[in-house]
């Protein structure tokens, strides 16, 4: 790890600058979801809240949890939970929604 001695020493500002921008984006999305929840758009109102939640989670997982820099094995482990939940939702809702539609 010879490069370790050559790297430029960071300052606290280096950590705050990038992460504060991400935090500001997360807060802006929070305000947006709060506002959109009060706008009557039918089923789009529900969808807007969920989509914004996915956007916020994506920012946290990719940037705060550093999946963007992680090795493929780590990314695979991280994705496994999401994939299994997606299968769980897809199979269950395929049954439930077909029954609701059949009523």
């Amino acid at each position: 790890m010879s490069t370790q001695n050559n790297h430029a020493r960071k300052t606290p500002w280096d950590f705050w600058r990038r992460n504060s921008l991400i935090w500001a984006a997360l807060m802006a999305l929070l305000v947006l979801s709060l506002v959109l929840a009060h706008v009557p758009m039918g089923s789009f109102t529900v969808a807007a809240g969920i989509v914004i939640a996915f956007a916020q989670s994506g920012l946290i997982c990719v940037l705060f949890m550093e999946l963007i820099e992680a090795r493929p094995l780590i990314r695979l482990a991280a994705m496994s939970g999401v994939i299994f939940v997606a299968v769980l939702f897809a199979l269950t809702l395929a049954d439930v929604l077909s029954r609701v539609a059949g009523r």
Partner: protein
Amino acid sequence: MSEATGLLREPWESFERQSEAGTLGIWAFLASEILFFGALMLTYTVCRIENADAFAAAGRATNIWYGTANTAILLTSSLTMTVVVQATASGDNFRRLILACLTVTAALGTAFLAVKGFEYKDDIEKHLVPGAQFALTEKSAQLFFGLYWTLTGVHAIHLTIGILLVLRLALLGFRRRLELDRNPEIRVTGLYWHLVDVIWIFLYALIYLPGRAS
């Protein structure tokens, strides 16, 4: 790798591998947590599909300001936790910054629980606990609040564990009994903390936002 040799544990021969294994291990655990909360959220989704109007009425009965304030608190705690992890990973001896941010993170987590406590008090006073005295006339609204108490309660337990883990790191750090630079324990704790935040983001959308526009 000289700074990290004090952190090397058996059975690993290199610190890099130990660190990688820690990250892989916590992600495997977090995947199981995603499944756990995913199953509860799926239960919520099915109940909501079948009782859309009652869930909208129940959603309106929650206090959106408590929920929004708590979301802002947790998002901010994720910021301070990220600074902790990145300052630790830099290996540049940011001891004061790391300890200050660990303390703020634990404080924000505690603030979340305090706000939740006030919200629970209000909910109990408004008879929003499923049972004979339940306030809302829509029968299926009890399903919503059954899931509300379960989801937020289990989340609060997870957050409490997170606060204890962060406090442990801060305490050991203040007493100089923990090497802070490049310590995998800090990265692992940080990942757990962020996941608790991510779960709350979805709970906020599912619990506090429904029924506001109608």
